């Protein structure tokens, strides 16, 4: 069981390394979206740092959602996805390692890049660190929930926009507690309540999403 999951993780990372541009496009999308806001809202430091957590989180949401179809789309086309369904391993575990790989390739880079963008938006140091922490705890939930949407819209025409319509409403709790944590810390209320709830959402997603994604894949490949 664990062997197969390790193989799956190795496979995903090897594939991504052979097509580095794909990983970087998600990251650059994140950077571009965040950089648009000062141009739109104006460069004043107060307004920017006020909206910074929300901006960073919305950009992280959009970036991780855009990279979701890479999860299953190619494997669906070349028949490897079928082989996973026919593998002797429980599909939910294979899907879990696939989502883990997706998070390592898209979620983690966002977390590592967020301090730089935080500075760009005039956040103070401990807000920047807290921001990175909320992203670290929250982005796994984005990949997990998104994977269910990706499974459902596999091979469906207009899948991209449809995926956004399905998945973004489900991202809202993560957005609220993620950006809310930084605001709460800044106003002195303290962010540990937000962080624990964000962690709870990620754990709940980690338990339910692989099973739901496996069911979605079986439905799509029927």
């Amino acid at each position, binding site marked *: 069981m664990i062997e197969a999951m390790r193989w799956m993780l190795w496979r995903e990372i090897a594939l991504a390394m052979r097509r580095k541009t794909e990983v970087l496009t998600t990251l650059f999308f994140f950077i571009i979206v965040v950089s648009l806001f000062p141009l739109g809202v104006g460069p004043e430091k107060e307004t920017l740092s006020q909206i910074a957590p929300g901006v960073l989180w919305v950009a992280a949401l959009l970036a991780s959602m855009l990279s979701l179809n890479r999860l299953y789309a190619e494997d669906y086309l070349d028949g490897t996805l079928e082989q996973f369904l*026919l593998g002797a391993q429980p599909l939910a575990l*294979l899907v879990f390692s696939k989502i883990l790989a997706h998070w390592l390739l898209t979620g983690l880079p966002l977390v590592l890049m967020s301090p730089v963008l935080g500075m760009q938006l005039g956040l103070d140091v401990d807000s920047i660190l807290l921001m990175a922490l909320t992203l670290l705890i929250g982005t796994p939930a984005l990949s997990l929930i998104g994977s269910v949407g990706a499974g459902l819209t596999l091979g469906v025409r207009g899948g991209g926009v449809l995926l956004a319509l399905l998945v973004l409403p489900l991202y809202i709790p993560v957005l609220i507690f993620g950006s809310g944590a930084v605001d709460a810390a800044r106003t002195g209320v303290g962010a540990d309540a937000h962080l624990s709830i964000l962690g709870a959402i990620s754990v709940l997603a980690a338990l339910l999403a692989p099973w739901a994604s496996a069911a979605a894949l079986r439905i799509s490949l*029927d």
Partner: protein
Amino acid sequence: MLKAAGLECMRGDRILFSNVKLELDAGELLHVKGLNGSGKTSLIRMLCGLVMPNAGEIFWGGESISDLKEDYLANLLYIGHHLGVKAELTGLENLKINAALGGHPISEDQAWDALEKIGLRGREDLPAKVLSQGQKRRVALARMLVTKAKLWILDEPFTALDVDAVKMLEGVLNDHLHQGGMVILTTHQAYTPPKTTVKYLQLGEAT
């Protein structure tokens, strides 16, 4: 060993086929015949558990495959139209990953031998995207040399294969059947059937 009765398949809201019956035991080959669109591929995928039958049940060793799930799949090897070969990965990597996911990981040497035997000498470690369609199919077929699965389900296995590849594949099928394995296949090309018992299943009107 494998038994199915009353199988019905619905695609969209059309019934492709209904109350299909089949039985297969060790050492037997089942050749599913039928025009394109008669539901051959759907039946094949149904036997793999990929497609849910509208009616009827499939049994493996007396137990329904929907209850057995992974235990049934551990005994199953399926090669479909889509070969399941990743273009960016080399033949070796593809073979090792598929074997690991099939529940029987193989060593590097076993992978090299299998690819060599299947006729890919010298191309074992090239990314699959540089291989020809026939060579890609050989990478997929190489899984037959390393699998421990008893039931092989092959959808058009002979397509894009040259003459000696077809002969080699027939040999592999023969050995598998003689060791008590089972094969279900669909094909439009002529092939010399193995010396063991061969059953035929006609879907839709005869050609």
